[in-house]
């Protein structure tokens, strides 16, 4: 991948095997519930989960539903992940009280907008606020910018969430997933 490819999200996704490696990694770590708000950056993960008979994929109407779903899944001993875009982080803020107060393990993969090379000005307010907002609510942020960081960083996040009981967000930067020109 080179800098010239940043203008095309689909070109990056098509050429990148990291999404498949990421899905396989989540499955190896026992994640069985995939809650998502549809997003191009997570398309391969969503499609893989929908095609996998051993997991449940949960489409959400708003991202905060996924925060509560993760807590409920943990009560029952299951591992869930929330797939969302950075704009959705703003919809989760008060619901993260549940994660922090209850000390629930929490893992979310956030595809960034309003970031490197963004072409839609509406995406900047929440995109630029994503990491600070998560951090003040007690969520540790690990940012990924290169394909070779995806598996090791997400593996670290899985350990931090499900072994140490932390709340962790993996931020998939637009340098990784490609900036949208719109």
């Amino acid at each position, binding site marked *: 991948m080179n800098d010239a490819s940043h203008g095309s999200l689909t070109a990056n996704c098509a050429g990148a095997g990291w999404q498949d490696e990421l899905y396989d990694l989540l499955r190896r770590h026992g994640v069985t*519930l995939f809650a998502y708000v549809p997003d191009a950056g997570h398309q391969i993960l969503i499609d893989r989960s929908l095609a996998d008979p051993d997991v*449940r994929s*949960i*489409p*959400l*109407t*708003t991202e*905060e*539903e*996924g*925060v*509560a*779903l*993760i*807590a*409920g*899944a*943990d*009560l*029952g*001993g*299951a591992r*869930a992940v929330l797939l969302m875009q950075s704009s959705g982080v703003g919809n989760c803020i*008060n*619901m993260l*009280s*549940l994660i922090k*107060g*209850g*000390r*629930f393990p929490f893992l979310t993969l956030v595809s960034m907008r309003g970031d490197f090379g963004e072409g839609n000005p509406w995406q900047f307010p929440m995109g630029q606020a994503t990491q600070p907002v998560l951090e003040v609510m007690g969520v540790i942020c690990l940012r990924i910018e290169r394909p070779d960081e995806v598996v090791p960083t997400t593996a670290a996040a899985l350990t931090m969430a499900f072994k140490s009981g932390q709340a962790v967000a993996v931020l998939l930067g637009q340098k990784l997933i490609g900036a949208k020109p719109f």
Partner: protein
Amino acid sequence: MSASKISPAKAIAPDVLERGDAVPALIGRHEDFLIIAGLGGTACDVGAFTGDAAHVYSLGGAMGAACMMGLGLALARPDRHVLVVTGDGELLMNLGALATIAVMNPPNLAILCVDNGHYGETGWQKSHTSLGVDLEKIAAGAGITRTCTVARPDDIAAGARLLREGNGSAFVLLRVKPTEPPAFKRNFDASFLRDRFRAALAAP
């Protein structure tokens, strides 16, 4: 006021059921369920009825979480019946959850909404359900196929059956008088409640 948006033609019969009687009557043997209780009155309803049982997780904040916590728990434990007991105000904060639950439709999930038409904890302001909103119709419109409203003593037997039986998620709207919930000293330690719930579930 002549062109009020809220139709006066729909005469709502005064509510007659007491929550302190109707909630236990509908739930029956509470040990048959894993229970998520909403914040406010329903946490007291369930806490008093179950004697602060470990198989209950009650919210003290994060308003709007109850139904989705129930969905997560139901998907994690398809071998157990999961019951969400929440209020009209808590449910109104996250109506989209009804759509998500309808889409997933786990047969082991039931929602009991204790609708007193008011925000009892904040000064008894009227909620939208006192102003014409029908949460059973919203649940049915979201796609939950098994719904009913319990408003009279004669309705309770059918409501209790709906909470326990069937091949899809259930929604029971319980209309009650706007009276105080049973007295119950709640534990607001969300982390303690998590550990206690998980330990109880893991026990043989």
